[in-house]
């Protein structure tokens, strides 16, 4: 035990001495969670919309005013020819245009039918989806106002409730996702160099001839980083509650316990990388180039996992941040108890144990 503690103390000194890394470790997750918590959403705001009005009558103008009054759009009124419109799109200046054909109001009055075209830049499909749905909504509202005089029989009135996130904000989805992503990469990156650095600088030899057991080395390497990560976690949680307005609905202790488990999983993954590689460079490149994009794209918070091909869904099961994202969503946002997340907890626990034992097995007690 005394041996273990003194080794932990040695590791702590190493970590605390590098002020810059320390600053980055504490500063980075905080800045990132803040930045992405505020910046990431899928709700379009104040996009420029070009009105191509060949009709210039009261109906087209009323709709235009309605569009301008909504918080989603800013009117850029221009009557452009098709060529001008196309070149404005190609320059990337505009993303959408509404075309009112000639005699719009007249058609609406006489034939009870009129057409509006919404042109969107579908090369940015997410934005295009939102734009079409907002514009359609505005036009339908206008239509409903016009038709209000006619009472429609046999109406089904849907009463819709948006649970957990009544204003449909981005933060309740992105905060757990970014938390999982940032913690995963920071923790893996920290321990990925831990052992390989000793190999590279030659101090590994000293460790190997000491009476330390491999498991003590692994555990004591991870301990200081566990404490640092917990400090990170607490600052992220404070930010999300007090700044981002995403409160912890469930049991705080449960959330902290689950987070600790996830952090240990990531630290063990880093240790395994560190044991398997021969230089810091390789270890860090594997940790970052190898994990950043897969963790982001298969972690569940960016793309819905149920849409992926089956093989990819299986691969996504290997990514620890996926499970942690589910846990945080359930405990923090929905306020669920342990019974809702025991399965995910068990999976994380099994992954952690496996990583630990594989690391132990791969740990070479001899220099090559």
């Amino acid at each position, binding site marked *: 035990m005394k041996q273990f503690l003194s080794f932990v103390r040695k590791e702590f000194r190493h970590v605390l001495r*590098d002020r810059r890394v320390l600053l*980055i470790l504490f500063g*980075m997750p905080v800045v990132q969670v803040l930045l992405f918590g505020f910046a990431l*959403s899928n*709700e*379009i*705001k104040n996009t420029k919309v070009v009105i191509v009005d060949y009709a210039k009558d009261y109906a087209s103008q009323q709709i235009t005013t309605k569009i301008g009054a909504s918080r989603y759009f800013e009117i850029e009124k221009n009557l452009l020819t098709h060529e001008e419109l196309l*070149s404005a799109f*190609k*320059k990337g200046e505009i*993303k959408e245009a509404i075309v009112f054909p000639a005699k719009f109001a007249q058609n609406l009055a006489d034939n009870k*039918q*009129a057409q*509006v*075209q*919404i*042109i*969107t*830049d*579908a*090369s*940015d*499909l997410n934005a*295009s*989806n*939102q734009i079409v*749905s907002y514009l*359609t909504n505005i*036009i339908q509202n206008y239509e409903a106002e016009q*038709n209000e005089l*006619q009472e429609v*029989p*046999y*109406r*089904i*009135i849907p009463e*819709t409730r948006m*649970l957990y*996130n009544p204003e*449909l904000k981005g933060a309740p*989805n992105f905060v757990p996702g970014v938390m999982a992503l940032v913690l995963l*990469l920071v923790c893996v990156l920290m321990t990925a*160099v831990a052992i390989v650095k000793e190999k590279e600088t030659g101090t590994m030899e000293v460790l190997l001839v000491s009476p330390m057991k491999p498991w003590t080395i692994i555990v004591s390497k991870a301990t200081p980083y566990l404490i640092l990560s917990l400090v990170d976690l607490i600052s992220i949680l404070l930010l999300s509650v007090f700044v981002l307005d995403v409160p912890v609905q469930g049991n705080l202790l449960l959330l902290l316990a689950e987070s600790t488990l996830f952090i240990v999983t990531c630290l063990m993954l880093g240790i395994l990388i560190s044991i398997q590689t021969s230089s*810091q*460079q*390789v270890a*860090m*490149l*594997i940790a*970052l*180039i190898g994990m*950043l*994009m*897969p963790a982001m*794209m298969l972690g569940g918070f*960016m793309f819905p996992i149920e*849409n*992926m091909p089956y093989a*990819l869904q299986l691969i996504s099961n290997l990514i620890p941040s996926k499970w942690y994202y589910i846990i945080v*969503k359930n405990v923090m946002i929905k306020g669920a108890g342990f019974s809702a997340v025991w399965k995910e907890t068990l999976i994380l626990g099994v992954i952690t144990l496996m990583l630990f034992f594989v690391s132990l097995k791969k740990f070479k007690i001899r220099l090559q």
Partner: protein
Amino acid sequence: MRTLKILLQKEVRQIFRNKIILRIATIMPIMQFLILPLAANFEIKNINLVFVDHDHSVDSRKLLSDITSSGYFRLIDYNNTFDAAYKYIETDKADVVLEIPAGFEKNLMREGKQQIFIAFNAINGTKAGLGAGYLRTILGNYNKDIIVQLAPSVKSKQESGINVVPLDWFNSQRDYKLALIPGILGMLVTLLSCFLTALNIVKEKEIGTIEQINVSPIRKSDFILAKLIPFWILANVVFTLGLFLCYFLYHIVPVGNLLVLYAFVAVYLLAILGFGLLVSTYSETQQQSMFIMFFFVMIFILLGGLFTPIESMPHWAQLITKLNPLAYLIKVIRMVMLMGSGFKDILPQLEVVAIMAVVLNAWAVFNYKKKV
């Protein structure tokens, strides 16, 4: 000039000798490019539905079949209490609960209107919003059907309407692969360039070989250039491989001229590699360098406008994207590959990235001090 040649020789040798790094730098991005695009799909379908029917009438059953046959919803469970259905939402098994109250059919016939209750799991706001939209449309059509059945005279009055025709330019199939894959390629090339260069100079510092450079008459700019050029070529090779995969594997045929894209990428890579070298000159250890780079790369990627549109960010975040080189790359890749924009169209973006390239590289040269 001769010094540069010799330095280049040294760098290239170092790169090719370290087979592991070379493999990580080329095979890993390509492997990811083979797998990850399959995940890139924002399409909202298979919304899991629990249908709670207290009425058990012909009408309520018709509504259910209308909803399930729309293709957007997948029925998970039917005919339960609301509390049991709510459990499904709590455990993430369902996204939406629809409750038909008892007397639904009777009230609809007798009083002409009837409420139904819908509860969405709205943690993912986009999904819930779109799902609610689909349900609105289905209910609207269902209403029309009933009116046709029961009151054909009203129907003719209802005809009047504005027909909204969405036109999806540049991606008429509304294919997410087309919208996302070229951008993902840009991201992978950026990752590779940033991390490799960020590690490079600082490694020489850490193992001490930088002293030999420092005491030699090598000019600072030659040193930086010699670090830059090999990675520039490597990144171009990976980018080209990626374009081949785009064409042969994902069948994305570039609409515009690829030379325009290459011209932009050439300048872009100078900027992003310069940034990597700059970070490297500021760091003392490889670990520091990697952490700093990781911080910036996350910002580049998440504020790059590929996964969430730049238009949806708050104003201050949009200003940050103006300093984000990757945002320009993603925009230009989309413009050239999908919209067929020409050299003139991308000129404003090219200018900004060119300024970034000059500033970042000059800064890196300036910041590299030939002393320890």
